[in-house]
């Protein structure tokens, strides 16, 4: 009988403790970020899809050496390059990233001898069909960025 009494009263006390805690939280500020209106800054090392870094003249540093292609676990990179006249190294003509297969592991970035590719910080990627993600053309992306910069 004493135990029952103890359990009922003690149990009721634990309930009031719980309600006290939630009430205290009730009067504190929400911790959420109201996403489309405000957003957090992506950290320095954030890994989104690859983009080219560029030389001062806006051309890519990529020398189409295919090391990233070999390092990629999911075979999601296609690189093509040509040797322009008067230049020592090859320059890239095509760099396609199949983003549907990329696992953002970073093997390509680590292996790159010229630091031509880095991770972008584009986190709000959205598309209505698969094709838009299927191939991300890094050369075109670099051109577009250059154009924007020129403007």
């Amino acid at each position, binding site marked *: 009988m004493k135990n029952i009494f103890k359990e009922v009263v003690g149990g009721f006390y634990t309930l009031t*403790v719980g309600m006290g805690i939630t009430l205290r939280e009730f009067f504190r500020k929400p*911790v959420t970020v109201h996403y489309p209106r405000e957003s957090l800054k992506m*950290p320095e090392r954030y890994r989104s899809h690859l983009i080219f870094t560029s030389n001062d003249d806006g051309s890519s540093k990529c020398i189409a050496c295919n090391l990233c292609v070999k390092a990629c*676990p999911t075979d999601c990179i296609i690189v093509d390059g040509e040797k322009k006249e008067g230049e020592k190294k090859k320059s890239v003509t095509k760099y396609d990233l199949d983003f549907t297969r990329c696992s953002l592991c*970073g093997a390509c970035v680590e292996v790159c001898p010229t630091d031509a590719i880095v991770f972008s910080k584009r986190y709000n990627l959205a598309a209505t069909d698969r094709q838009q993600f299927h191939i991300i053309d890094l050369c075109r992306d670099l051109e577009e960025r250059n154009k924007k910069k020129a403007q």
Partner: protein
Amino acid sequence: MELHPVQSTGPQETFVLNLGPQHPATHGVLRVKLTMDGEFINDAVIVAGYVHREHEKMGENRPWDQFLPNTGRIDYLSAMMYTHAYVGAIERACGIEVPPRAEYVRVITSELNRIASHLVWWGAYLLDLGGMTPLLYAFDDREKILDLLEALTGARLTYCYYRVGGLAEDLDDGFVEGTREFVKEFRPRLKMFRRLVSENIIFRKRVEGIGIIDAEMCRKYGATGPMIRGAGIPNDVRRAEPYSVYPELDFEIPVDPAADSMARYKVRMEEMEQSLRIIEQCLDRLPEGPVMAKVPRVLKPPEGDYCYATEAARGRFEVRIVSTGKPVAHRVRLRTPCFGNLSLFEEAARGMMLADGIAMMGSLDLVIPDIDR
């Protein structure tokens, strides 16, 4: 006062209840075929494999280090420990000595990851039991951990941060202070969690004495981690088969002999406390130096088979690699904790009530890709 659960009245008309593949309590795509007698479970059959991806085959058809991204995707909630086991196995095979700084950082990030994983479990378990608010509180704290790890590794879940022989990158500037601050903030939060939930009479009534899984059953089914520690046996890979710098650290292995859902709950709550201790010690001792050992460009572990086990958040995760001296693995076997932990559900759930069965399933802390691989 003893409040005895009511008993099933015996074999009568039964019906089959499909719990899942899409069901709030199965935390993913797991299907449990229950033969029910009213609210009592007469028989439970697990139907798994909905997210099977054949990771083991993937390990066999690519160079050793290219399997690394996969390891974070087996148990996405404690990816660090999984990657640790895989790189550990290769390091053991090749005899690579990992720099001490890298080992310490590995331990710090693993323990942070363990806390994050336990927080998800804690919130989701309370969600299973019908309490919604703890989930949000848990995620509030988990978010801080994920922010730390994101700033460090660039990803929030599938970190792929460890490399064979060390780490991908050294610590970033804010990590040490950020972690210290988190540890300081999280201690009172744990206390709050305890007062809000662990002592709550409704919660206690729901988990105490429910879902008894004793040590013998764990042994027969190979259940590990909080399952076996919740059955009173202090088995923890970090102590039993020490790896990394764990032997140098001072921490306890929480044990509860009650073997019920509450015991497993308490063990996990206490583990978070111990993880904080480990993190503090590692931060204090963190040596300077490189974070990457000299590793050959193409890995060719010598012939033979090698095991490496880590204590993941859900129990023992073990990688067994079989090498034939080639740059590609001959066999990569992933021994995942949830596989063993769930396999005893069929036996343990027999005769329970539906809600109790769910309370027990939640206490197993399932991650479905971990079972299905």
